[in-house]
């Protein structure tokens, strides 16, 4: 029995960070909530994605896939997708 699924923990963190970045930029009250709760929105995002990494990595420790996607591929493409989407989001926001 596996103790921790690093892949699915990472996939969860990558997805969550992407969602947090987009929502915090587009919905001001949410960014203010992060600031009020964690003293800074960046700290809030760091705490939340670390928590997601640990919780999902532990809870999904025996999963080898999610649907048709193997855990390693899901983690890899989620991570690359997150990095690309975050960059493109700020490019688009700047050009708006």
């Amino acid at each position, binding site marked *: 029995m*596996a103790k*921790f699924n*690093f*892949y699915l*923990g*990472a996939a969860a*963190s*990558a997805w969550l*960070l992407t969602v947090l*970045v987009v929502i915090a930029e587009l919905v001001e009250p949410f960014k203010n909530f992060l600031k009020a709760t964690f003293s*800074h929105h*960046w*700290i809030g*995002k*760091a705490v939340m*994605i*670390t928590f997601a*990494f640990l919780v999902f990595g532990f809870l999904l420790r025996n999963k080898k896939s999610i649907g048709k996607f193997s855990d*390693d591929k899901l*983690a*890899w493409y989620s*991570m*690359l997708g*997150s*990095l690309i989407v*975050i*960059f493109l989001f*700020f*490019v688009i*926001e*700047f050009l708006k």
Partner: protein
Amino acid sequence: MRDFVLFAHIIAGLALIAFPILILLYLKKKPKWLKALSFATAAISWLLLLPSGKLYITFYPATKTLVKAGSWPWAHDVIMETKEHWGLLLPIIATVAAGLVFTNKAKDSKKWWALLIILSALIGIMGRIIKIGALK
């Protein structure tokens, strides 16, 4: 204080490029120190959040004002915004890579170490761009 935090930030960032390169070079030979260096790299990636956070939260706002007022406002709006969030994924990536080494999937860790090297280098370059942006 600022200099100490800045140097810690730069040295730890460089370690996240140098250590994974060493790990990749010796991954096939599996030397005794491979797991220790993998663990150290992941640990450094988490510890790096401390000087990064201090620089970003305490010292960056003044730089941000300069960047936004200058002729390269995109250096903050695009580069810094991206950099500060990409940086949050560095410890996750390093931990996945180290975790794979520890669970005897060293071969699978290759691309994660490579991603860590590329991302750390890009973040360093982005930091330099922002610094130049403050002077424009």
